[in-house]
């Protein structure tokens, strides 16, 4: 595939376009987790990565002729993401109670 052809595919929303958007979304989420220190922002980065996985899943499902199995897995991923949100935020609140901070660098040791 030549370069112009690839760009055309991406801009018109072919399968490659969705995959590239999902990849960039994943790497932006990963960058948020690595570069920001606030636990709440890192948590949002994890959510972003989960969303990128969902985009890839549903993009492949659509290009395989509307596979309904993907929707089932999408539902399970959403359920796990919701659990992760509840537990993660509870842990952040617990950390804030003990250390008075939401900065992950300041929570580097297990001992108080």
């Amino acid at each position: 595939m030549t370069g112009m052809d690839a760009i055309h595919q991406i801009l018109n929303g072919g399968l490659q376009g969705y995959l590239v958007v999902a990849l960039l979304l994943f790497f932006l989420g990963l960058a948020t987790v690595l570069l920001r220190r606030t636990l709440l922002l890192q948590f949002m980065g994890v959510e972003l990565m989960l969303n990128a996985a969902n985009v890839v899943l549903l993009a492949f499902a659509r290009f395989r002729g509307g596979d309904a199995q993907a929707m089932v897995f999408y539902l399970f991923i959403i359920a796990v993401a919701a659990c992760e949100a509840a537990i993660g935020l509870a842990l952040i609140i617990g950390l804030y109670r003990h250390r008075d901070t939401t900065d992950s660098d300041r929570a580097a040791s297990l001992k108080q």
Partner: protein
Amino acid sequence: MFITFALITLLGALGMLLQKNVVVAGLCMVAAFFGVAGLFVLLANPVAAALQIIVYTGAIMVLVLFVIMMLSSHQEEEAAVSHPVQRWLSVALLAVLAFGAVNLVLASPGVKALAVKGAEMPQAMTLQTVGTNLFADHLLGFEVAGLVLLAAMIGAVALTKRNL
């Protein structure tokens, strides 16, 4: 249409990465989730788009914004120790990984074949199809997901309650 929603998604995510104020970063995240919902509509999947808006922007982000405001941690705290080398290394590594992965996707013959084969639009996903599939073939998984949600709920209450 595709490029509009893709731009909303990516700019929202970029805004979240760069924004200093945590609340504004959360709102950028909401924009990114709406963009993803738009992408799901373009993928002939209105059910997933509705779920995306209800669960992510409606439930998860509201929960996160509540916690941000409850802890009043609107600004990022000053760094205790700065790690400039590690930060630049991670940026460089991410850039290399992203470039490699995008190249891999664009060069893959399998992806290209699938894109050509599935080019015509399939029937839009209906709630009925999803429900039939979920309850006919994945009933056990559905029950387990319910159990996991219950466990998470109890765990969250146990973790946040001061004296149980």
